[in-house]
């Protein structure tokens, strides 16, 4: 099904390219249909064949290698962001589940935090990070991108985990009470296992959010080495080499899919012995 959908997109792209007007359609001077020239819409096969050719003329590094290296770099940053977001998200969820007061005080701010545009936040985090120096620890530039990934990732994780922690039935909470189990024991023996079906989709959202955060942060702070930087660099060359930027976009998509795939693999593993029904 996934392959069929992909094929359909390719067919639509190429059909429009073949049939659509080269200069796009205009209505009352406003362009409403995209242009179909080679510069605006390169052939799909050009995008793919571009992978095989050198990144810059005369270089022995192909675009494929460059995109792969960029995606790998961004993947590591996203993974770091995802882990940070996971720790912060789960930590906040536990605090909120433990103390109703914290929940009432913090939860609204979490919601507000997600309305701050990432682009505006990125330079701030970079400049704060640049001023941070604790003993031998110097804030590396890549950490800013990871932090921004974490900033996007922690929110769905915190909310999903909180919901899961609160999902334990009254009877099972009473059962743990009847065993005189402490809050911590109840947390690990009852609440976390109950929360797993809620945490899995939350982490999946968090994983893709961390990728978005990192790529956007790379673009807006101009951090070198990652797929975000490649997207801007290749986009600048679009007039002479229109297919090139798409290779970086494919790289970013593959990066997101890989991240989601890792989380799905973990999901399948932790849910292997659960009844086959889903929570929404």
């Amino acid at each position, binding site marked *: 099904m996934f392959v069929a959908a992909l094929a359909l997109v390719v067919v639509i792209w190429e059909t429009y390219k073949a049939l659509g007007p080269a200069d796009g359609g205009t209505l009352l001077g406003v362009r409403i249909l995209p242009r179909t020239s080679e510069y605006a819409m390169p052939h799909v096969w050009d995008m793919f064949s571009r992978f095989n050719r050198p990144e810059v003329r005369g270089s022995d590094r192909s675009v494929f290698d460059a995109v792969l290296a960029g995606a790998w770099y961004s993947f590591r940053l996203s993974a770091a962001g995802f882990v940070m977001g996971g720790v912060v998200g789960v930590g906040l969820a536990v605090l909120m589940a433990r103390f109703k007061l914290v929940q009432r005080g913090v939860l609204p701010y979490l919601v507000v935090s997600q309305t701050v545009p990432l682009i505006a936040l990125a330079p701030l985090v970079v400049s704060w990070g640049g001023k941070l120096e604790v003993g031998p620890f110097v804030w590396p530039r890549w950490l800013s991108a990871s932090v921004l990934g974490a900033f996007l990732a922690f929110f769905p994780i915190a909310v999903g985990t909180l919901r899961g922690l609160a999902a334990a039935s009254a*009877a*099972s909470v*009473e*059962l743990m*009470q*009847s065993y*005189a189990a402490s809050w911590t024991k109840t947390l690990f023996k009852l609440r976390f*296992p109950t929360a797993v079906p809620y945490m899995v989709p939350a982490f999946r959202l968090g994983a893709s959010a961390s990728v978005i955060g990192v790529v956007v942060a790379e673009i807006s702070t101009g951090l070198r080495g990652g797929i975000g930087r490649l997207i801007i660099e290749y986009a600048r060359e679009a007039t002479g080499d229109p297919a090139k930027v798409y290779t970086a976009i494919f790289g970013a998509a593959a990066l997101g899919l890989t991240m989601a795939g890792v989380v799905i693999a973990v999901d399948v593993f932790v849910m292997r012995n*659960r*009844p086959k029904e889903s929570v929404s």
Partner: protein
Amino acid sequence: MSAVSIRNASKVFNLGKSNQVDALRNVSLDVKPGEFVSLIGPSGCGKSTLLRLIANLLEPTNGDVVVNDKPAAQARLDQDYGMAFQQAGLFEWRTVRKNIELPLELKGWDKNARALRANEMLQLVQLPEFGDHYPWQLSGGMQQRIAIARALAAHPPLLLMDEPFGALDEMTREYMQGELLRICAATRTTVVFVTHSIPEAVYLSNRVVVMSPRPGRITKVVDVSLGGERNEDTRNRTVFFEAITAVREGLRGMHAAHVGLGNDDR
């Protein structure tokens, strides 16, 4: 010496607020070791509240609750009782065996001792081959038997049950009643059992405590002289029907007193 001793216990929810509820007023009850006592009454009569006072899941507003000759709070800390609810409430991420081991784990038993006891309990509830299954692979009746095994795993002297068979069909229910009596006889466990089925209460109990609502209190205690040995024939004996009639009259007397109060469901 009594297994449970309740002296003038009252429980008021939302004390002093507009939605104040007198859940229990001046309730006194003694349960002897080895006795099977049922609490029966309409919704809102406080039978579940009374059970939770014994379990120390709730504190009484007034009065004393003594379990196993200690304050209820201490008895809970010492895990002197096991508890079973209407929903079996097994943890779906644990195998049947691990579910039974849960109270032992919390008591800090080592792995071998736990495994040994889990096997013993699986034998007791006659499901030895289901130890490595997951709860959702079992029928409702089987799940409830595992819940009983879990409640009794630490060999507590007292078993508290809150409508444990309420969600089962009639056939399974009668079978489970027989099973419960067999298990309790084998382990000599004292039971306090909440139900709203009259035949169930009579079939299982040495004494049936009839309760009434608003405020929750004990209106009648029916002694059931069926003797120790109970089987399917018991359900046809005259004594059985007489006890059922006595309990029903206890419940009806209170109902008559409440005619005209309107909505009796609350």
